[in-house]
């Protein structure tokens, strides 16, 4: 049902799979603090903007980019300069 992307662009759920390739713990239930505005959100509640080969996550409050993830032929590339921390509760 989430098949949609005839263009080859990933959608939000596909991006969750990409992030889960990087993290061992469930990243969608982790809390992320936005570096720009300081608000904290569950990662799964964020909007995932699909880009070629990857995803951009934006803050629900200020729209700042908190995470960028890209899959390349050589491995995964993750940028989190827009986030203060990522908390996995166990």
């Amino acid at each position, binding site marked *: 049902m989430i098949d949609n992307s005839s263009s080859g662009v990933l959608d*939000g759920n596909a991006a969750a*799979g990409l992030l889960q390739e990087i993290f*061992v713990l469930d990243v969608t239930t982790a809390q992320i603090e936005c570096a720009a505005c300081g608000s904290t959100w569950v990662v799964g509640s964020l909007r995932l903007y699909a880009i070629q080969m990857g995803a951009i996550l934006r803050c629900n409050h200020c729209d700042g980019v908190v995470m960028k993830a890209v899959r390349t032929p050589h491995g995964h590339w993750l940028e989190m300069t827009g986030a203060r921390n990522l908390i996995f509760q166990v």
Partner: protein
Amino acid sequence: MMVIETAPVAARRLGWLLAEVREILVETPRVTSLLLHVAGWQGHRAGQHVDIRLTAEDGYQAQRSYSVASPPEDDLLALTVERVENGEVSQYLVGHVSAGDQFQLRGPIGGYFVWTAATGGPLCLVAGGSGIVPLMAMLRHRDRRSSRAPTVLVYSSRSLEDVIYRDELDAMASRDPRMRVVNTLTRKQPEGWMGYGRRIDRALLAETCFPPEQNPKIYVCGPTPFVESVSRLLVELGHNTRAVKTERFGPSGA
């Protein structure tokens, strides 16, 4: 039988498994369910999704995400797939797949858009089109566990023929006074249709969803514009942004 209610945080690498098609169900002219046996499947919670990967003979691979339609209690894993024009994966999965076919699958993925019987209610589910799929896993789970959580499903479809799981939903609601199904048909209504016949708007949600004072758990799934619109209306009605869990599919902008 002991059922673990809340699966532990997934502390494992996401690996590809082999799925075999055991049964194919035609849901609507454009929608098919595949019942899969997945070797090594570790179980899931209602609302989670999986990735599937098809490999052509020349090695070309295509990967897509699909919500799980079956509850954790079932032996086979059900995916419900809508055929998308020019969708290279969905075209295969709807109409060209046969029992015995195999492909790669990984999951479950995503612990955010999840409801378990232990989460309780009241439960308000809002579906647009094939956005019903993960919500159906929740309803089936609720049914299997005989959960008493008061529940309403608000389900927007183009026409009656496009309502996925119609008979099963009717049967569930008719044997359970705590569950209500509200259909709205946005493009075509059969003669004598007594239900809603318009896109989900503020008045419709106010009439059908539990009020904010009851702290309902709200799950919204559908195409991106549908989800954006419904979640905005719910917040306008006084529901807390954080109480409204959403899952969007379709081109996600940018």
